[in-house]
């Protein structure tokens, strides 16, 4: 199935344009260096990349929850056609939890240990909607049932320490979806969980996406998870989206050498029998934000690099269904071989 082009899909739900985030007071130290991403309503966009490439900072920027030490110095975030007032905490509070929900990585520490689960979920509803406490609690019980928790009416009165990690992540998902947001940001939602529980949580997220029609921004470094759940993928490297394509295209024909490197470093079941090469790691490390150089950030680790890569940071351009930032993108034929 060929992916629909931008015009066929209508307006994107979230549009991140040339987003720049830097260390507060030291604007030359950029954590996000002109990141551009788009998510359309109802789709799942996976953002992948190594640790430290700016994935989580991206999600925190969208929520307007950047840590004190960081500051947005450029770019724009548009949500459902209007600019997100990320610098205005009071205005962002009306967006957070109501129009954009967020699920974090660590379910064990995401719930307040001294507040009953039901109250923690109800809090979101009471904050954003003009509704009685009793009605909110009814909604909470429905929500807890919807995320697949057993005996929800009873569970609502429990404290978090009585729940397992998987159950807590379900509660966190219930909190994030309590006000039926249009976008759910899931930042490594299954990384801290057992493998079997990971699959359950992802299945739950996909099911809820189908039922509620929400878009999901899935942040992960697990390519297997991406292949199973995402409609489109953005590969991030050193604060930029170096390649963006639909999942099938990206996995079958990666254009950026970094994407290719990531895929080669990922095991596939039965890959050995089918003559897959042994796993290859990408040499070197993500450059520190303190290393300032004019060229492509991937150049020191890249096997395709040339002189131009060292001097000019590659701009973004579209090749077929893929948006890629590279001077020497891998041709489709080369990628398939």
């Amino acid at each position: 199935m060929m992916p629909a082009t931008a015009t066929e899909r209508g307006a994107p739900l979230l549009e991140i344009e040339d987003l720049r985030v830097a260390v507060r007071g030291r604007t030359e130290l950029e954590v996000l260096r002109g990141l551009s991403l788009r998510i359309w309503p109802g789709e799942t966009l996976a953002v992948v990349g190594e640790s430290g490439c700016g994935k989580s900072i991206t999600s925190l920027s969208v929520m307007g929850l950047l840590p004190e030490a960081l500051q947005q110095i450029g770019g724009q975030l548009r949500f459902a056609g209007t600019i997100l007032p990320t610098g205005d905490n009071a205005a962002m509070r009306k967006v957070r939890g109501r129009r954009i929900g967020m699920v974090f990585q660590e379910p064990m520490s995401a719930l307040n240990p001294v507040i009953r689960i039901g109250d923690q979920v109800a809090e979101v509803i009471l904050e954003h909607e003009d509704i009685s406490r009793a009605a909110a609690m009814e909604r909470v019980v429905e929500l807890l049932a919807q995320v697949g928790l057993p005996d929800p009416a009873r569970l609502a009165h429990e404290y978090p320490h009585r729940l397992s990690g998987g159950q807590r992540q379900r509660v966190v998902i219930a909190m994030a979806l309590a006000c039926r947001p249009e976008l759910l940001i899931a930042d490594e939602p299954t990384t801290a969980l057992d493998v079997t529980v990971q699959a359950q949580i992802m299945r739950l997220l996909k099911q809820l996406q189908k039922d509620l029609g929400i878009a999901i921004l899935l942040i992960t470094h697990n390519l297997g998870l991406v292949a199973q759940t995402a409609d489109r993928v953005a590969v991030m490297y050193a604060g930029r989206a170096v390649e963006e394509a639909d999942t099938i295209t990206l996995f079958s024909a990666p254009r950026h050498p970094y994407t290719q490197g990531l895929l080669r470093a990922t095991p596939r079941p039965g890959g050995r029998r089918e003559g897959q090469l042994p796993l290859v790691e990408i040499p070197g490390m993500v450059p520190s934000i303190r290393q300032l150089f004019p060229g492509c950030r991937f150049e020191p680790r890249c096997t395709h690099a040339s002189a131009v890569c060292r001097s000019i940071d590659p701009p973004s351009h579209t090749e077929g269904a893929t948006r890629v930032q590279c001077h020497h993108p891998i041709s489709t034929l080369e990628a398939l071989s």
Partner: protein
Amino acid sequence: MTSLRRPFPWKFLITRLVHAVFTVLGIAIVAFLLLQLAPGDAAQALAGESGTADAEYLASLRAQMGLDRPIYEQLGAFLMRILRFDLGYSFRYGTDVASLIFSRMPATLLLMVSSILIALVGGLFFGITAARHVNRLPDRLISIFALLFYATPPFWIGLMMILIFSVQLGWAPTGGMINIVAGHTGFAAVLDIAHHLVLPALVQAFFYFAIYTRLVRTGMLEVLNLEYIRVARAKGISENRIAYRHALQNAVLPLVTVVGTNVGTILGGAVLTETVFSWPGVGRLMFDALFQRDLNLLLSILVISSIFVVIANLVVDLLYCVINPTVELR
């Protein structure tokens, strides 16, 4: 998942109460033996004041007070009295110890409870405010004042406040608890006591306030960086609610411990303040008893104090599991 409401921890409570009895008896024995080491006794103190120190008079005084008997006999008699809740007789004041202490108790309780309450309200508010504006101006100011109050001796603050507010401005009385001359009754008497209470309560509160503010600030700073606070922000919860509903309850456990200790030392904790403001409390009674070698009185106050400490500790432990549901009492 078992029951929702945890059953009241009766077993814990009974065990702790049994322990408490032995703890108090142990403290009584240690206190008794320690006081034997102090030079001089009540007979000498009395004789010294009356100016006659001849051996016969001393011996008759000692025989009257039971001081001539061997120490183990005195200790045995003392412990037997405590077990019967009989605190004995103060030869110094010529009245029984129990009624002496209990006549002084309300003044001390009033002073200490009001100062701890003032300190709690102030400490919570300023501690939270400091933590929410960490390293910015409000935090800097609050931290400096907390440090000043912590480092300045309460009796000095007391003297300065008397100088300024009583002597110079004439806003408050210099000491005492009641204006005897005026002979107020009813509501006027309550106002009169409140008027006398303001300065000593504030002075005593300053010290606690400094400790509480620092504790709350530290605790809040730790909690405000935790993941569930970020989650709460991502839910769109207001900063006020995050501070007071989400963070505070997780940050107050150290405060509860320290307040518990302060409540435990409620009887003797305000000796200096009571002395500076001539407040007729138990602290001063104890102070005087020490110098007059009134061992019966002193020991009784010590034993009652230790009972306060034990009860305060027990209450703190019970409060712990109310505040933090993950705490299990065993």
